[in-house]
C-alpha cells in the first residue's frame, strides 16, 4: 500500500483532473480495443508481418511518419530547439524531405517489385545471405535500443508531468504496446499509428497557437528570443558559415552533406522501422505516394515540436539547463520544455489530451520499433538461419512471442538508457553506426549493376566498423574531434554527422573497389533489384495530378520556399 501510494505522491509539474484521467484511460482502452478487433485479421504471416499489403497511400503515409514521431521527435527535438534554436528544424526539412522524396521516386520501385518483406531481405536478394545477416543483426540491436529510448523518454515525461513512478510508466506503456502489436501484428501497429498521429496533432497543436497569441506573433517571438538568448537562434542557414557562429557549433557542410545527404537518406530510405510501413501499401503507386504524403506532413511537424521549444525560450520564467545541471540544481532540464509549455496553457481536458498526445507519440515509436524488430527477427534471422521450413502458422506464432520478448528486451534497454545524460546524442551515435553505411550499400545495390555480393558485404562491414571506431577514438581521445568533425569546437551532433559522412564514404569506396575485384552477377539475376535490369511500370495513362512525380515536385517547391523564408 505504501509503495502504491508513493507512485502517485511524488513531485509533479501538473495535477490531472478527473476528466484528464478519463481521456488518458479512454486512449488506452481504444488502442487495446483496436488490437483485439484486428486479432482475427492476423492469421497468416503476410497479414501479421505485412498487414496483408493492402494499405492505402494515406494510411501507409501517415503511419510511415507516425512510426518516427516518437520520443525523439516530441520531447527530444523540442528540447533541441530550446537548446540550439531554429537550427533544429534542419532535422525536419533538409534532414528528411529530400530523402523521403528520393525513397518514393527512386528506391520504392525496387523495394516493392522485389516483394521483399524487409530491408535485410532486399540485401539477401541483392548481395546474398552474409549481407542480410550483418544488416539484420545490427538492425535488431539498434531497434531494441531505440525502443528502450522511447520507453525511458515516456517514463521521464510521466515523472515530470504527473509525478508517476518511472518504473510504473515503463511497464504500463510497454505491456499495452506488447498486447496490441502481438494481437494484430503490423496492421494493428499501423492503425494505432494513424490514430496516434491524429491525437498528437490534436493534443499538441494548441501549444504553438496559444504561444503565438501570448508572444504577439512570429516577429515578436523572434525579438524576445534575440533578447533572451541570441539572434543566432532564429536563423536557419545564415549562421552556418562558421563553426563558431551558431549554437550547435556546426558548419553548413555538416548539415548538407552529413545530415542532408547521409544521415537522413540512411534513416528514411533504409531504416526498416519506417520502410516497413510503405511496404504494406496496396500497390506500387500507393507505395510511391506514401512517402510523399509523409513528407508533406513532415514539413509541418516543426509547428508542434520546434515552435514550442522556441516559445519556451521566449516565455518561460525559468532557464532550462542540461540534465546533469538540472539534477544538481533541482531545476528543469531542456527535455522538460514541452511538458512545461503544456502545463502553461492547457487546463482540464486539454491537459489530458496533451498528455495523451505525448503517450501516443511514445507508444507509436515503441510499436514501430517492436513490429520492425519482430519482422526482421522472424524473417531474416529465425527463418533464414534457424528454422527454414516451418509451416506459416509457426512463423505467425513466432512473431507474436517475439513481440512480447522484444518489449521485454526494450524494457531492459530503457533501464540502460537511464545511465546516459543526453538521449538525443546517443540516438544520433547509433544512427551513424549502422544506418549511414547501410544506405551506402543499399543505394549502390539499387543503382549500380556492377556491385557484387562481396563488394556489398565488405563495404557494409567496413562502414559500420569505421563508424564505431571513430566514435571510440573520440571517446578515448577527445582531441581527435578535430579530425573526425573537422573542428575542435564541434559539438556532439556535429561529430555524429561527420562520422556518418565518413563511414558512408568508406562504405562506397570499399564496395566499389571490392566489386571491381570480383565477378559481377548477370542481368537476369538482378531483374527487379537494380536499375538497368528492371522494367519499371510507366504511368503515362494516369492523370498528372495522380502521379507521384507531380506531388513530389509540389512538396519540393514548398520545401525550398520554407528554407528561404527562414534563412
Amino acid at each position, binding site marked *: 500500500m505504501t509503495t502504491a501510494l508513493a507512485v502517485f505522491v511524488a513531485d509533479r509539474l501538473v495535477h490531472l483532473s478527473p476528466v484528464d484521467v478519463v481521456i488518458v484511460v479512454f486512449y488506452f482502452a481504444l488502442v487495446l480495443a*483496436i488490437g483485439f478487433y484486428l486479432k482475427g485479421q492476423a492469421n497468416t504471416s503476410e497479414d501479421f508481418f505485412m498487414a496483408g499489403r493492402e494499405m492505402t497511400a494515406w*494510411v501507409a503515409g501517415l503511419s510511415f511518419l507516425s512510426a518516427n514521431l516518437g520520443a525523439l521527435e516530441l520531447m527530444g527535438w523540442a528540447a533541441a530547439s530550446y537548446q540550439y534554436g531554429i537550427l533544429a528544424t534542419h532535422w525536419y526539412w533538409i534532414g528528411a524531405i529530400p530523402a523521403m522524396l528520393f525513397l518514393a521516386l527512386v528506391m520504392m520501385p525496387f523495394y516493392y517489385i522485389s516483394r521483399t518483406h524487409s530491408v535485410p531481405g532486399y540485401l539477401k536478394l541483392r548481395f546474398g545471405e552474409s549481407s542480410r545477416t550483418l544488416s539484420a543483426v545490427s538492425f535488431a540491436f539498434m531497434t531494441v535500443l531505440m525502443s528502450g529510448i522511447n520507453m525511458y523518454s515516456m517514463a521521464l515525461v510521466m515523472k515530470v508531468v504527473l509525478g508517476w513512478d518511472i518504473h510504473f510508466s515503463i511497464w504500463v506503456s510497454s505491456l499495452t504496446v506488447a498486447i496490441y502489436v502481438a494481437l494484430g501484428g503490423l496492421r494493428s501497429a499501423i492503425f494505432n499509428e494513424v490514430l496516434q498521429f491524429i491525437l498528437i496533432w490534436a493534443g499538441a497543436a494548441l501549444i504553438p497557437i496559444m504561444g503565438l497569441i501570448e508572444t504577439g506573433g512570429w516577429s515578436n517571438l523572434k525579438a524576445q528570443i534575440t533578447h533572451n538568448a541570441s539572434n543566432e537562434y532564429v536563423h536557419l542557414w545564415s549562421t552556418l558559415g562558421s563553426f563558431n557562429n551558431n549554437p550547435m557549433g556546426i558548419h553548413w557542410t555538416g548539415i548538407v552533406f552529413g545530415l542532408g545527404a547521409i544521415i537522413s537518406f540512411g534513416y528514411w530510405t533504409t531504416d526498416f522501422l519506417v520502410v516497413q510501413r510503405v511496404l504494406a501499401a496496396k500497390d506500387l503507386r500507393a507505395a510511391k505516394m506514401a512517402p510523399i504524403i509523409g513528407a508533406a506532413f513532415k514539413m509541418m511537424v516543426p509547428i508542434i515540436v520546434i515552435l514550442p521549444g522556441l516559445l519556451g525560450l521566449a516565455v518561460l520564467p525559468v532557464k532550462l539547463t542540461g540534465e546533469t545541471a538540472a539534477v544538481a540544481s533541482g531545476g528543469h532540464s531542456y527535455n522538460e520544455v514541452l511538458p512545461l509549455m503544456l502545463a502553461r496553457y492547457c487546463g*482540464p481536458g486539454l491537459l489530458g489530451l496533451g498528455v495523451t498526445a505525448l503517450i501516443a507519440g511514445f507508444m507509436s515509436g515503441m510499436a514501430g520499433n517492436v513490429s520492425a524488430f519482430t519482422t526482421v527477427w522472424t524473417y531474416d534471422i529465425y527463418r533464414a538461419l534457424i528454422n527454414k521450413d516451418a509451416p506459416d502458422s509457426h512463423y505467425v506464432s513466432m512473431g507474436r512471442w517475439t513481440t512480447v520478448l522484444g518489449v521485454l528486451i526494450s524494457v531492459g534497454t530503457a533501464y540502460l538508457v537511464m545511465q546516459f545524460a543526453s538521449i538525443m546524442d546517443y540516438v544520433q551515435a547509433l544512427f551513424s553506426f549502422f544506418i549511414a553505411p547501410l544506405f551506402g550499400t543499399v543505394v549502390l545495390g539499387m543503382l549500380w549493376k556492377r556491385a557484387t555480393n562481396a563488394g556489398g558485404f565488405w563495404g557494409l562491414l567496413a562502414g559500420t566498423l569505421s563508424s564505431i571506431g571513430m566514435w571510440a577514438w573520440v571517446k578515448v581521445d577527445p582531441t581527435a574531434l578535430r579530425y573526425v568533425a573537422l573542428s575542435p569546437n564541434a559539438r556532439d551532433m556535429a561529430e555524429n554527422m561527420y562520422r556518418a559522412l565518413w563511414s558512408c564514404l568508406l562504405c562506397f569506396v570499399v564496395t566499389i573497389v571490392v566489386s571491381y575485384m570480383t565477378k559481377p552477377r548477370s542481368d537476369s539475376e538482378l531483374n527487379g533489384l537494380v536499375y538497368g535490369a528492371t522494367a519499371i511500370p510507366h504511368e503515362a495513362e494516369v492523370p498528372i495530378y495522380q502521379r507521384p512525380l507531380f506531388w513530389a515536385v509540389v512538396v519540393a517547391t514548398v520545401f525550398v520556399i520554407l528554407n528561404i523564408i527562414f534563412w
Partner: protein
Amino acid sequence: MHEHGISIWFFIGLSLLVNGILITGAGIWELISPPANRVVLFQYHANVWWGAFLLLVGVLYCVRFAPGRHA
C-alpha cells in the same frame, strides 16, 4: 483503411468525438465555476473552442466512416 470491417477513420472519429465532448464539457464547467489556479491565457477559454472543434470533426468522421456504410 480496411475494406472488410471497421475503417481506421471511424476509430479516429470516435476518439475525437469522445475527447471533444469531455474537453468542451470541462471548458464549460470552468466558465461556470472558474478555478483558483488558472493557466496562462485562461481568458481565451481554449478548452471550449478547441474541444468543440474536435467534437465537430469527430462527428463528421463517425458519420462518414460509420461501420456498414460504403466509404
